[in-house]
């Protein structure tokens, strides 16, 4: 089986299988869970884009929310002005965000850690305010995004939520499958080489600037897709849909997943979706004080983030793997 996963075809079959399971699951649960499933799929895509950037090419972005915003607005504008089919809108979101990412990445390739972190942070704060400058972007209220009703062939009882879930889950599966392929390709190896040791990579003939720009571009494209999915699940795009806290939670999700391992992406996404529920349960026990109820989710996520960075800095998945490798090594000796 694992050999199967190392071939392109094998991965393809595996993802189809995974998709089948997920869609079956989607039929078994109630609307709220289906809706959360769609949100989960959106987070999976968004977190993957950060893992790709940080884990595989060593660049930090604190402003991925801005790239999600670019994707979201592109999809919505394409839908509203040209009434294009929904999948074309998603493709446009990917392309526009990737183009923006290419421009940013060119600048980013010149910046080292803290400068890049700060620039992306400033971008996340600055970019959404553009929407208030141009009326076609809908200002603070934003623009409505209607992906349309589910096809009649799915039956009259097929709820829009399930339709969103199908779209989001398919998009997530395709994105993950494609990312798995790309990180195992020549590009993936190049990025890891640059992340490991930029100077050594340069000596080995890798153009580190180009590699970084490409990583930023691909990551931005994926983030654009996540933005379009987000716009779909909330039905609108507006500056307030992409606050700084969104960028921070995505980064948190990536760290929880283990920034270097795409397969762990589910951990971060599930945590982000589940945290509000868990904190709700806790605050219920604590007597439902308004101050506790409203601050607990953020507090929990932050505490979790610190714990993970302190205890399992490379993420739970990588931690287990390296423990295993160490164990095997000690056996072999």
């Amino acid at each position, binding site marked *: 089986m694992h050999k199967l996963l190392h071939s392109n075809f094998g991965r393809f079959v595996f993802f189809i299988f995974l998709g089948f399971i997920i869609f079956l699951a989607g039929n078994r*649960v109630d*609307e709220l869970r289906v809706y959360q499933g769609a949100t989960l799929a959106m987070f999976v895509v968004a977190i993957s884009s950060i893992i790709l950037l940080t884990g595989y090419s060593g660049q930090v972005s604190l402003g991925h929310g801005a790239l999600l915003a670019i994707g979201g607005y592109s999809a919505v504008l394409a839908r509203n002005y040209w009434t294009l089919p929904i999948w074309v809108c998603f493709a446009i979101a990917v392309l526009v965000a990737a183009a923006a990412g290419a421009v940013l990445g060119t600048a980013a390739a010149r910046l080292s850690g803290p400068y890049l972190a700060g620039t992306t942070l400033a971008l996340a704060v600055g970019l959404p305010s553009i929407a208030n400058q141009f009326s076609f972007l809908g200002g603070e209220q934003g623009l409505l995004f209607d992906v349309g009703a589910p096809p009649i062939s799915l039956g009259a009882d097929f*709820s829009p939520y399930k339709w969103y879930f199908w779209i989001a889950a398919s998009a997530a599966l395709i994105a993950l499958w494609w990312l798995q392929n790309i990180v195992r390709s020549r590009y993936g190896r190049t990025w890891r080489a640059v992340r490991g040791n930029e100077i050594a990579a340069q000596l080995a003939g890798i153009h580190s600037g180009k590699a970084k720009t490409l990583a930023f571009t691909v990551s931005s494209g994926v983030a654009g897709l996540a933005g379009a999915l987000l716009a779909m699940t909330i039905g609108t795009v507006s500056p*307030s849909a992409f606050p700084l806290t969104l960028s921070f939670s995505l980064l948190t999700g990536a760290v929880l997943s283990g920034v270097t391992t795409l397969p762990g992406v589910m951990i971060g996404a599930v945590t982000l979706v589940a945290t509000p529920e868990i904190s709700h349960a806790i605050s219920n026990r604590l007597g439902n004080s308004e101050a506790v109820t409203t601050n607990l989710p953020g507090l929990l996520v932050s505490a979790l983030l610190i714990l993970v960075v302190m205890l399992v800095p490379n993420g739970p998945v990588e931690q287990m793997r390296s423990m295993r490798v160490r164990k095997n090594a000690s056996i072999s000796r």
Partner: protein
Amino acid sequence: MIGTYRRKLLVASAVLATGSLALTAIPAQAFSVRNEIGVTSTSIKLGITLPMTGAASPGYNKIPGAMKAYFDYVNASGGVNGRKISLVVKDDAYTPTASVQATNELILKDKVFAVVGALGTANNKAVAALVNPGRRGIPDLFVNTGFSGFAVKKSYPTTFSLFPSYVMEAKILSMYIKDKFPGKKLALLYQADDFGRDALAGFKTGGLTFDTYIPYAPLSQATPTVPPTWISKLQAAGSEVVVLFGVSSATAAALGAAYAKSYRPQWILGSVGGDATAIKLAGVPAPLFTGVQTASFLPAPADATDEYVKLFQTINTKYNPGVTFDNNILAGMNTAFVTVQAIAAAGKNLTRKALIAAIETKGSTFASAGLTPMAPTATSHAGYNGYWFGTYDGTATLKPNDGVYTVYTTDSGAGAVVKSTYKRPAMPANGLPTN
């Protein structure tokens, strides 16, 4: 070895995904929901979304407490037709994303009967588009925003407005300023988004042009650079009357910066930014309020001669202890009052359809603290339609000009501004609506 491991991880991820989705093994539900959701013979469950945290929360976060206090008061008297009312509060930090998620939870998880008093224009628009209470037949009562569109039944079939629209407010302000401050140099300081732009449209309809317009980005009043520049510009232009259309924190910043530059024009605050408690909470000392004017549609919160204010003050002391009575408490209790009135009007056999029909047919005769009539009909879901003007004294207490509430009414279209002759119906006995 590692490969096997990765496979296991993938499988684990898939299981995790499936598991998280299947947390509740409830079979897929049909989309059409039965109307009595959220209602039993002894209870009614309502929900609200609004900013309880974040920059927009000060002031507004007191509203749910006030609503709960009034509901508790009603419950203590036996409830409405034997049903006791509970309110589920969800924080959305003023972001539409969170509003949608919170409303989804209210409807799908908490299974509320209706949503009441949800706050924010963008928030309500997002909720209407996605959660679509309209299509589900879920009442979305008395939204906390002045966007005129929510009154249009065709677009928002189950949404009801309560507040007069921003367009109405700007039209009435235009009339008032032309009347009271002729020949003065006028300036408009406004939040450069749909909220401010709605007002601009209203001033245009009202035929009022300002000598100076200063737009600013929402929330930018928190940057140390921004508020002083407003005042410098206003001083340079020699503005004598300054109208401010922004949130309370912007009012606070503007009043503070004006004080620092010894600049004392006639300030006229829009109803949104005229909330004295929130402004005081934002650090502006009470004496700076002297002479500042604002518009309102509810009685002044300090007016103990008003029967509603008196009752609400008593309820607040008993059921919401430790919280100062102010604009927000008054508004919250009034929203709860109108809600109880509507539920009572829907009759013993409480359904969502019955509730909506009751507001459409009897809404214009509802008792409430509002000094203007409510205007819901079978085709329009408009709420109040007018304002009176008042002035703050040195203790930041709002008093109606010349000691009487002179109410002006208009509509969101091209209609004229007229002095209202509306006589508010007497308060139901003990403040408990029946019919």
